[in-house]
Structure formats: C-alpha cells, structure tokens
C-alpha cells in the first residue's frame, strides 16, 4: 500500500518559495491549516506570493497571518470584509486583490484539477466581474468564461488521514479541501489524527491519497 510522507508544520512551511501560487483551504479559517499558516508567516525570506483562498481569514490568522507578514502580493478571494487589514493594504496599494464570486472560484479550482479549459457560468454576466473576460453564447444565453485556477502548492485542513494519505474532513471544514488538493502540484494536509492505512475505508474517503504529498499532524506542531 501507498505511504504518505509525514512532516512537521515547519517543514511544510519550508516548501513555500517566494513568487509561488499558494492555495489555502478554509472558509473564514474553518478548514484552514492554522498550524501551517502560522509557520509560513514566520518565514522572513518568503514574499510576493499569490494566494488563493476564499477569504483573508481573520486579522493575523490563517491567510490573515501571511497578509500581516506582508508575504502576499496578490490575493484571489471571494470576500475579505472580516479582515480589515486586507482593505487597508489594498487601499494603500500594497496588495493586488482579485475578487471572484465564490461559486466561480470553487469551480475554477475544480476545472484546474479536472483538466477542463475553464468554466461557463451565468454568474457575473453584466457586472464588473465580467470586465475583460470572454463571453460565450450557448443556445441563446450568455455565459462568462472563467479560466482554471491552479496552485503550485496547497495547504488544507483535514480531520483524519490514513497512512496512505487518504483524507476525511469534519463538519463544514471540507469546503475547498478536495478542490485545492486536486488543483495544486504539491499538496499538504494538516490533520488531527492519523490512522492505519485502509482504516477510513474505500467508501468513506473524501480526498484520495493520490492527490496528497505530505501530511502534518496538528499536535506535533
């Protein structure tokens, strides 16, 4: 059976290099691997990241930790209103902010993971979101062509991993987990528990081990 590599949060953070596109899972930090984001924010040598995350987390927490550290050059998100520092940095010209509808962003990430050329969505037609984007008409209705969003590395939070790297989530934390795991070259999952290979069971795996490169056990951090 396959065996996934287990590393520490510090080692996970060391995988990030300046200028990378980093995907961070979670919705308002629910599903964000906070131990890892904290470690990334300790790195002085990492800057100019493009971060893909539903939001900016809270001030200093999750994606907000990287933001506070000044590591993010460009943020692709859907809602940043609950971290006022995000707005401040944007207003000060220190942050390139791309706001996308949440369903569009989720589907763009899925498209990257599923090898599709983009998505055709009715969402955003006739709004500023459509500016500069291709509109494709299908049977008389206009759809916005939104391109795939791919990551160099993704950090997500699971609940249980088995030793092969299969993942299960808890509660509403699954949000962007599977999607980002499918769409990034390197995938790191922070979990609270590691169980023997196969213990999750073939009918209960939510993210397959073939997507997962490293797991970090939360307690070890």
């Amino acid at each position, binding site marked *: 059976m396959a065996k996934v590599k287990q590393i520490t949060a510090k080692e996970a953070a060391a995988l990030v290099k300046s200028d990378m596109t980093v995907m961070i899972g979670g919705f308002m930090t629910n599903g964000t691997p906070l131990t890892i984001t904290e470690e990334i924010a300790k790195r002085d040598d990492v800057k100019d990241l493009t971060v893909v995350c539903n939001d900016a987390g809270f001030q200093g927490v999750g994606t907000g930790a990287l933001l506070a550290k000044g590591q993010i050059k460009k943020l692709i998100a859907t809602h940043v209103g609950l971290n006022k520092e995000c707005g401040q940095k944007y207003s000060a010209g220190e942050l390139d902010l791309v706001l996308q509808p949440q*369903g569009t962003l989720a589907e763009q990430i899925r498209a990257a993971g599923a090898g599709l050329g983009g998505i055709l969505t009715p969402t955003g037609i006739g*709004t500023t979101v459509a500016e500069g984007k291709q509109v494709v008409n299908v049977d008389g209705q206009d759809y916005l062509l939104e391109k795939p969003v791919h990551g160099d590395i993704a950090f997500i939070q699971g609940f249980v991993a088995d030793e092969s790297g299969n993942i299960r989530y808890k509660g*509403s*934390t699954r949000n962007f987990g599977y*999607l980002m795991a499918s769409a990034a070259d390197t995938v790191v999952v922070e979990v609270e528990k590691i169980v023997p290979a196969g213990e999750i069971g073939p009918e209960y795996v939510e993210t397959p081990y073939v997507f997962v490169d490293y797991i970090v056990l939360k307690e070890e951090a």
Partner: protein
Amino acid sequence: MEKSEIKPFIAKRVAKEMHDGDVVNLGIGLPTMVPDYLDESVQITLQSENGFLGLAAVDESNPDGKYIVNAGGQPAGIAKDGMFFDSATSFGIIRGGHVDATVLGSLQVAENGDIANWIIPGKMVPGMGGAMDLVVGAKKVIVAMEHTQKGAPKILKKCTLPLTAQKQVNLIVTEMGVIEVTDNGLVLKEINPEFTVEQVQEATEATLTVADDLKSMIDGSPIK
C-alpha cells in the same frame, strides 16, 4: 412604525413566501429572522453556501462550536438529516436551481430586476462572497429591505451602483409593501395599510403599477 419594528415586520411577511419543503438560503441580517415567523406547517431546509444543507443553531452536532460555521463564519449546527459537501458542490446546488428561494438585503433594486448589493459606496469593497451566485441561481430571489435609505429611494428605474446581477429579483418586500418584478415592470401587490399608494410611489423612483386586487400585507384583506 417604530424603527425597531421594521425588520421583524418585513421578516414576518417574507415568511409567508416560504412553502413546506423549500430549500432556502438566507442572507445576513434581516433575512435570518424569517424562520422565526414560519407557520408550524412549513418546514424549510436552510442552505449554508460554505457547504451544507440543514443549517441550525449550535447544538450537540457541533459541541465545541469548532467544526461547523455558517456563511458568516460564526459557529453553527446542522440538522440531523442535513449534509456537508465541498464548495463546488454547494454552488452547483445554488447555480443549478436547487435552491427554491434566497432572501437578501439590497442597496438598490431596479424595475427590471437588476440588483446592486455588494459594493457600499465610499467603503472598502468586502467582496461578493456567494451573493452573485445566489441571486443568479436561486429559483426565487426575494429582496427584503427597508424601502428607502435615509429617505432616498432604493427601488429605482436603473441601479447606479455596480450590479450584483442583472434581472434576477422576483419580489421586493419592504415595510411599505410587497412588489413583484414582472416583464411589465414593478407591480405593487400588497401594501402596509399605514401607508397610501401615493406614499409608496413617492418613496419609489421606479413607476409602480398597482395590482387590481391590491391587498394588505398584514392580513391579506382587500385594499380599495
């Protein structure tokens, strides 16, 4: 009407739009008050766009408030027969027309159903979150809001703020009345008897057609 009575009054009327078995997504603020006013015979399923159906208050489904949050990022619970899914599935359910109704506030609504509710003028743009998908995808879009903003009309001929979506609003419920968006413009279907039709029109930039069978929004009785 006292200022503090306005929101419950609107929520109570919106509750009558809910049918037993409906899947509903409620925006923040006023819309979250709607379930308090449902008739006992009406059970609805609340969708939380961050990834589940069966949104509930924090309970034993989320004992430490840690693993389940609502679309506002606050601790929540889930109904016994609810279920979690990923964000693409969640918005597939929304965009695919599987949500019967969404209730949300708005800054402006135009007579053709255009809605503008994601950019507050002069403020930092917080982002549209799931709002654009919700108004495009939900079968029925119900705007629940105060009729005016500091006396200025919010129901307009044309929105002046950046749009959230084009031609998606179906119904507007305010403290003054219930307005349906039709192919022929806005139709005032019900009115709060505290106001006259003239007062409602005065508080509305767009032209209102008054329904032949205009009713009271409180008890449904005919208004002559």
